[in-house]
């Protein structure tokens, strides 16, 4: 399933970019290159071929890791994007871990104390969390922790301290979603008959939650986490811009401004592929959590 999805993604993104106004040959050669030279380069680059031919050529090269060269730096695009990827991965992973580490326990506690004050507060905060644009949250965090308090760095990837604010920025929305999801999933599971069965066995409440309810409740949450990774990657574009984080997202924003189409193209494809792979991993994790699916695979 992964391969056709990736091919489909490249097709969509390539088609979008194909219809971008602006002549790549002109952008490469510079503004006042002679007409015949431009035409020669167009021919060389195959820009005069029909769309489908150009796409297939692009796909062929892309499979070899060749996404062409950046218009602005002249470096191979794949290297450009790939060299930025660790930073994005680090940020997204940190954001996700933060979100999971906050969202799941809080969601569980909130569900086990439904209608309590704690539950209400949690729900209000979670609602705020999903309603907040992350770039604004980032700016507000910078305002508080960097500008006013001078505690934390506001930009760049220079060690743990510099990861804190971006990870919170990126993780908050997801944490809120995971909290809500865990809570509702937990509430649903707690109502199930098998939880009553466990209680009727004399299992302590703590154990009922941890052993019987949690794993079942996590099954839908894991799907959400997988889907949220796409949101994280998208959010990384904005978060990286706010925090001068040297990842793929900011590369992409810079490339957009410089009209560096190959870089934008490759960035979107790259992130989509990562997203697809993450979802594949989630499916595997899913099977690990849910024996009903595992036995289907056997």
């Amino acid at each position, binding site marked *: 399933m992964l391969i056709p999805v990736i091919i489909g993604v490249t097709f969509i993104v390539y088609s979008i970019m194909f219809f*971008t106004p602006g002549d790549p040959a002109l952008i490469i050669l510079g503004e006042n290159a002679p007409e015949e030279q431009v035409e020669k380069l167009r021919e060389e680059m195959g820009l005069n071929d029909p769309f489908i031919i150009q796409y297939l050529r692009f796909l062929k090269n892309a499979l070899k890791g060749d996404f062409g060269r950046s218009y602005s730096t002249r470096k191979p695009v794949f290297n450009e994007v790939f060299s930025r990827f660790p930073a994005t991965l680090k940020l997204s992973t940190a954001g996700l871990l933060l979100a999971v580490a906050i969202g799941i326990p809080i969601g569980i506690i909130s569900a086990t104390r439904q209608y309590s004050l704690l539950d209400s507060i949690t729900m209000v905060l979670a609602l705020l969390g999903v309603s907040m644009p992350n770039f604004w949250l980032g*700016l507000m965090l910078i305002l508080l922790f960097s500008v006013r308090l001078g505690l934390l760095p506001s930009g760049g990837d220079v060690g743990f301290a510099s990861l804190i604010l971006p990870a919170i920025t990126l993780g908050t929305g997801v944490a809120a979603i995971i909290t809500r999801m865990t809570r509702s999933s937990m509430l649903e599971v707690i109502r199930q008959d098998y939880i009553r069965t466990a209680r009727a066995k004399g299992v302590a409440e703590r154990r009922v939650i941890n052993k019987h309810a949690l794993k079942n409740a996590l099954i839908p949450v894991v799907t959400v986490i997988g889907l949220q990774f796409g*949101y994280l990657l998208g959010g990384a574009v904005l978060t990286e*811009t706010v925090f001068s984080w040297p990842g793929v997202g900011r590369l992409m924003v810079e490339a957009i401004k410089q009209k560096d189409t190959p870089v934008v193209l490759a960035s979107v494809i790259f992130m989509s592929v990562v997203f697809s792979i993450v979802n594949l991993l989630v499916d595997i994790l899913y099977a690990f959590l849910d024996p009903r699916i595992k036995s289907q695979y056997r």
Partner: protein
Amino acid sequence: MSSSVTTEKDTNLKSQAGKKRSQWGEVWRRLKKNHMAMIGLIIMIILILLAVFANQIADYEEVAIKQNTANRLQGPSRENWLGTDNFGRDIFARIIHGGRISLMVGVVAVGIAVLIGGTLGAIAGFYGGRVDNLIMRAMDIFLAIPSILLAIAIVTALGANLFNLMLAIGISSIPGYARIVRASVLTVKDQEFIEAARAIGASDFRIITKHIIPNALAPVIVQGTLGVATAILSTAGLSFIGLGVPKPRPEWGSMLSDGRTYLWEASHITTFPGLAIVITILALNLLGDGLRDALDPRLKQ
């Protein structure tokens, strides 16, 4: 974004809600009892009124875009409730006019997505088989591209203006609606009243428009309400990275972005448009959650 997963799951349950007029009355009664949803609704009504009467409250030409550099970077005061920006423009007026853009993009983008996604979903669900397979696989591929990235790609390609913004955000949220509508079509497709309609010779088109669409309405309304919130967030995000509406027209995301430079000296330029976004999204989420509960009472036991 926030609740799409739960909504999808609940589609089946909800499809029954839309059958009779009187059931909408019932939905409204339930919605009225939900205080949070009512707060959301009231906020939304206020925001819509502000947007509609923006020019009466603060004239676009004379207040929202007119520069007054002598009065720049002022904090909140009696004259300028939310202060002024770096060109001395009243931030409150700009937020109201920005709200017009946000709401319009939100509604139109969701409209586009519902129309295209809904049609695709209905066709896929109704005809099934290869058509279904083809459409839904295409949707899967669309879903593999994180929606904000897809929107970025489209706006980058087409150029940044209001129309392209709506189009891009609309297109990037098509798959969600396709899935929902397909799911509700599948649940009602084989029910007896459809069979009955067929038996008296109703055309496919008539069955789809008269029977299936009303049944898919409830989940689409919920998803649409939450979708407007997502679209507004995306609009702000795209504007923030410079893919928004042209200047000097105010837009929340670009106001935020412009304010970044002045974060230290005049943080109100950044704070207030952000708050406007938060309030709007919060209201839509409250309303959306409330609608979901009202349309599907079984969930809220």
